[in-house]
């Protein structure tokens, strides 16, 4: 290998601690279910359950990165839209510091808006082509009254552009079509930097960026946590990006979270057969490590009516499928094994994982699969203690 990976020199846990003065804030999803209905889903039996009983939480102190991975159609973007206040869930609540974000007072709403910012997948669709790209920055300053005059505002903007490694001269006054995808995505990050939100919800922010620019973007996201104490929900379909970013990992499939835990726990010791399938499919970028076994095709033809949902939705693709998988929704079981601990760049995975969160084992390694039911005698896998959510 000729690349020279350098250990992160600045990212120490102590940096994160210095933000201890910031009040602890919480962005939570509590048993959220949402189905899309209408003529467009007629071929699916009238509705598409995009998110099915999903709970997750993001805390700002200490700042954390939570990664949500899943295939296309798994419901990732629906989760992002609900957290950003763009889609009211049919059932369950999305709360910010304990208050339902869809029932906030105008003052509460303003504070929520300031604290939770989104970065989206398509750096081309987010800008209005008729306005200069920096309008998203000026508007933010305007909206939240962040500067007294234009000169102050410009100083603030230039500072934020510098934080995302953009030269003001390259982007200020330019129209979106004059900027590259990487520049546009970084302007959105500069906007986040400007507002210093407690939470960034980044929905596939790097999937349209080239590899060389992608790493830049992810590094900035990581630095935002250590330097400014921002917590991020990073949504991606790319497991190698998920591994790079580290933190907590949630694996989503067909609207449900099927596995959660520290990134190293989940990716090095995947418990759910679905996670195992994803990892087995991940191409190694080393030509000497090519697949030697064959993957049997588990694809289903589409356009079938929505299946009965009171079962494991992975059953038809699962090599370990059991009778009960077809009739019951698997609850969440804890996965046994030594937790790998912190997954920050430059740290060696030895520190024990934090203790379980009050909302139900959200920090530990847990899996929604009957194979991990201690009562399951035929389980071919290590039996673990239960912790039903």
């Amino acid at each position, binding site marked *: 290998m*000729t690349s020279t*990976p350098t250990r992160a020199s600045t990212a120490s846990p102590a940096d994160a601690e210095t933000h201890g003065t910031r009040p602890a804030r919480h962005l939570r999803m509590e048993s959220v279910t949402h189905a899309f209905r209408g003529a467009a889903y007629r071929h699916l039996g009238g509705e598409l359950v995009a998110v099915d009983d999903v709970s997750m939480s993001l805390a700002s102190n200490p700042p954390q990165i939570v990664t949500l991975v899943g295939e296309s159609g798994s419901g990732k973007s629906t989760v992002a839209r609900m957290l950003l206040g763009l889609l009211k869930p049919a059932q369950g609540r999305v709360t910010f510091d304990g208050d339902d974000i869809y029932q906030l007072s105008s003052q509460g709403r303003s504070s929520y808006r300031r604290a939770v910012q989104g970065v989206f997948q398509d750096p081309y669709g987010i800008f209005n082509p008729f306005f200069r790209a920096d309008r998203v920055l000026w508007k933010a300053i305007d909206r939240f009254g962040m500067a007294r005059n234009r000169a102050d505002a410009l100083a603030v903007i230039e500072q934020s552009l510098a934080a995302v490694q953009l030269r003001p001269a390259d982007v200020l006054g330019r129209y979106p079509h004059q900027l590259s995808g990487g520049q546009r995505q970084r302007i959105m990050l500069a906007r986040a930097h400007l507002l210093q939100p407690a939470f960034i919800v980044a929905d596939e922010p790097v999937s349209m960026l080239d*590899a060389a620019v*992608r790493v830049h973007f992810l590094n900035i996201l990581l630095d935002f946590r250590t330097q400014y104490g921002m917590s991020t929900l990073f949504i991606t379909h790319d497991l*190698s990006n998920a591994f790079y970013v580290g933190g907590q990992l949630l694996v989503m499939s067909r609207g449900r979270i099927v596995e959660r835990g520290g990134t190293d726990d989940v990716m090095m010791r995947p418990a759910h057969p679905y996670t195992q399938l994803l990892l087995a499919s991940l191409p190694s970028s080393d030509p000497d490590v*090519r697949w030697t076994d064959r*993957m049997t095709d588990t694809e289903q033809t589409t356009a079938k009516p929505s299946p009965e949902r009171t079962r494991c939705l992975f059953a038809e693709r699962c090599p370990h499928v059991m009778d009960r998988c077809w009739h019951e929704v698997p609850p969440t079981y804890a996965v046994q094994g030594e937790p790998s601990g912190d997954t920050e760049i430059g740290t060696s995975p030895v520190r024990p994982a934090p203790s379980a969160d009050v909302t139900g084992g959200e920090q530990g390694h847990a899996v929604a699969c009957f194979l991990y039911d201690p009562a399951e005698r035929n389980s071919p896998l290590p039996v673990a203690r239960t912790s039903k959510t």
Partner: protein
Amino acid sequence: MTSLGAATTGGTLLSVRHLTVEYATVRGNARAVDDVSLDVNRAEILGIAGESGCGKTTLTSAILRLTRPPGRVTAGSIRLFPKGGAPVELLGAKGEELRSVRWRHVAYVPQGSMNSLNPVMRVGEQFEDAITHHDGQTARKLDERIAYLLDLVGLGAHVARMYPHELSGGMRQRAIIAMAIALDPDLVIADEPTTALDVNVQRVIIQTLRDLRDRLGMSLVVVTHDMAVHAQLADRVAVMYAGKIVEDAEVRAIFHHPRHPYVRRLIGAIPRVGGGRFRLDGIDGAAPSPLAWPAGCRFHARCADALPECSTVMPLLVATGAPVGQQLTRSMVACHLHPAEAIATDVSGLEVAAPSQKEDR
């Protein structure tokens, strides 16, 4: 398991020389592909890599003669040496001659092609269209042929009777690949065949393409920005940057001993799963605009190792020796750090490559 190294046997199938493709825009001529030379060997899987906008798709559509205004080929030659036929100059081919080359000798799987099937026709009917248009077989033989083709890509014969919306994205992509090989072409060019597919489907597509090459012995050009796909599939990789090929080498040389600083940074920017978790560096700056390529090496402004001449003299793509395991393989690189003097004259002597090896960090 893989046929690494088997690539160079069998001679050249396609020879691209000094190809230049320009797009006329209101702000001037954009030279999207600039003086590109490239060979595709028989039964070889050639990967073409590079960032968006580097000219990958422009290059492959020129090979297919699919360049449309405002784009036009302004210089170069593309010669095809089909099996059992006379060489064809693709840039000069017209009408019937061109049609007989397409699909029969060179097939194309365009970008996003899984969404390009006709939604109101059954899959089998679309196969019939393609086959009869370019070949003209009888209907009875067609059914068998279609079933055989679908089987080659791991789909059942019943898929022929289905409509595209009944198939998943990966199945549609495989149906398109089966259609591309319908007339047993010498060369299949696949543009981003795995992009926008889920990882397990990607894996099945990669597996399918490799199987097809192994079974049918065709050549395959795979264009993708995804380096991991090249690592898994390609025998040889040509990396493009700003309209030029900057490095063209055997896949292991590209990944383990990249020469060009751009390629080195590109390989170094790939997040890997497992092992230590290190901070990676991206590449600073943005790729130059095709409307105004910089003088000299087009990467010099972003290059940490740039020499004074890099900003004035355009480096040529020259052969150097790249060590792969115990063997020295031919590798082409366009970089002043790797001058033509480093050409390996003695294949047994690894020290030939030593002067340039110090550039590897």
